[in-house]
């Protein structure tokens, strides 16, 4: 077989060809976000020529018919719903990952992997429906009244809860990999110095896995930031800056998904939606740059 191959293509040529293909594949993947970004910029140019970026970022007034395009409420909607989901899911995932990798019996860890796979495989629209049927009434009929508040249930908190649950399989899976990759000899070293198991986890395992933990948590945030359908089903979609977690909000992905293709007769509307997509793109870009910077700093130390 090898001899036949040698006859048709000399080894050196195959080698060079495969290197070329590999380079091409990598180049293509690097160019992909650039192409998407450039496309969004071009499409939002008509709006950018009419209105200043400053007012669009600061103003919360969004009424395309009057020509007011303020994105502040949408940006805040996205930021708050993401933060909320992060606060709800990250600590639980971190503690669960520590338990599952350091303490729990083998069968529990194995069955958890199965649960993670199932959770990751459920389509987001199903999470959305579940949110509408369970979380929304729960908040409207029980939680808010218990706190002396009123809400429709379609609010930031519902979005945050649904997103938190959706982010769990991704974060948990990656965090478990991070903790499993800490060498057992490192734990032995700490234990043999007289540290308790918990001290070892706190001071050695968490520290050794810090870069991985940051990467896992930022994956969860990226996931929450970009999630569309499940959020827009429960978050209320009112273009106002939310003042509490029981207020409705309108994240950027929901704005695009709800309106694209519908309101195209309004001048500049499609350009405004492209600008919303561009904003989302920039937020994710900035966020990932910040985490990369932190990871770089930690590795340097």
């Amino acid at each position, binding site marked *: 077989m090898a001899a036949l191959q040698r006859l048709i293509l000399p080894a050196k040529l195959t080698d060079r060809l495969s290197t070329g293909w590999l380079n091409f594949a990598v180049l293509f993947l690097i160019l992909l976000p650039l192409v998407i970004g450039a496309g969004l910029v071009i499409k939002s140019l008509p709006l950018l020529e009419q209105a200043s970026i400053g007012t669009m970022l600061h103003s919360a007034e969004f009424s395309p018919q009057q020509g007011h395009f303020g994105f502040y409420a949408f940006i805040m909607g996205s930021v708050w719903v993401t933060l909320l989901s992060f606060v709800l899911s990250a600590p639980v995932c971190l503690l669960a990952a520590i338990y599952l990798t350091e303490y729990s019996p083998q069968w529990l860890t194995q069955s958890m992997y199965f649960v993670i796979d199932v959770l990751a495989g459920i389509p987001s629209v199903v999470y959305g429906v579940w949110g509408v049927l369970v979380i929304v009434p729960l908040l409207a009929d029980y939680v808010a009244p218990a706190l002396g508040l009123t809400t429709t249930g379609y609010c930031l908190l519902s979005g945050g809860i649904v997103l938190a649950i959706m982010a769990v399989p991704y974060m948990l899976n990656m965090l478990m990999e991070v903790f499993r990759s800490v*060498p*057992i*000899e*490192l*734990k*032995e*070293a*700490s*234990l*043999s*110095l*007289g*540290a*308790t198991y918990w*001290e070892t986890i706190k*001071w*050695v395992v968490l*520290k*050794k896995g*810090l870069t991985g933990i940051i990467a896992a948590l930022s994956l969860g945030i990226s996931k929450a930031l970009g999630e569309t359908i499940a959020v827009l089903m429960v978050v209320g979609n009112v273009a106002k800056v939310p003042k509490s977690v029981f207020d409705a909000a309108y994240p950027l992905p929901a704005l695009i998904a709800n309106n694209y293709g519908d309101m195209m007769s309004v001048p500049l509307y499609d350009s405004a939606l492209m600008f919303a997509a561009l904003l989302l793109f920039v937020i994710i870009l900035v966020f990932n740059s910040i985490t990369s910077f932190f990871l770089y700093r930690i590795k340097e*130390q």
Partner: protein
Amino acid sequence: MSNSSTIIDQVQQVNGGEAGATSGAFPNTSVQTSDSPILQIRDFNVQAGDTRILKDIHLDIPKGKITVLLGPSGCGKTTLLKCLNRLSDLHPSLKVKGQILIDGEDIFHPTQDLTTIRQKMGLLSQRPFPLPMSIYKNIAYGLKIKGIRDKKVVKEKVEKHLRDVGLWEEVKDRLHGPAARLSIGQQQRLCLARGLAVGPEIILADEPTSALDPISSRKIEEEFLRLKEDYTLIVVTHILRQAKRLADHIVFMYFGEIIEQGTPDEIFNHPKSDILKQYLQSGH
């Protein structure tokens, strides 16, 4: 059988008690003190599933000496070593039976305070595993666990133990740099200093030079010979020449059993069993 062994135990425990009382003031002054066991291993068995990893181990580790556990890979040397400070607890599948006594106390007794036991023994593993922190903090870590937080004391101890292992001059200008940047040989000496900082009585070394170059290995060996004035050392190795250079007492193990033990002269020049003779000839 069991009767006679308990009598021996008692006699040895009495000896051990006397040794403990005198050795503090006059270390290694009498032959009896240095010969009395610091560790007594009795009817010790370890099993993983159906495989018996250690079979009826009965062994005394003499105080203030270097005991070498010799034998081919997979003979249970490392398992025995890790049972001594109960790192075997990390592997729930291992079933342990029998006793290991330190100063007359059973290490495997359910009410035993693990952290105290472990602080009596410093561990040096096959490859160096510096903690993910600075050189300084690697040594201060054990002190922090012991509750020593006075910065001046910590600083003095860090310097002392880095000098002990001959690392101070090499690292004194980058104490707060990451330990992972040191060479492998330096890392291994750092790990030794880290273990010394918690004030152990015994140093457990599991093939401590197997990842090192010859010069670094030699430094570790020289360090061991110096350390036996203050500590008891137990060194696992499969290198015959290393055993010859280091050992006061050699324990030859094969498939989970102790085949022979004795002085280097007895083991190398007058081996009794065929297994040991073969092992010596094959020259591992």
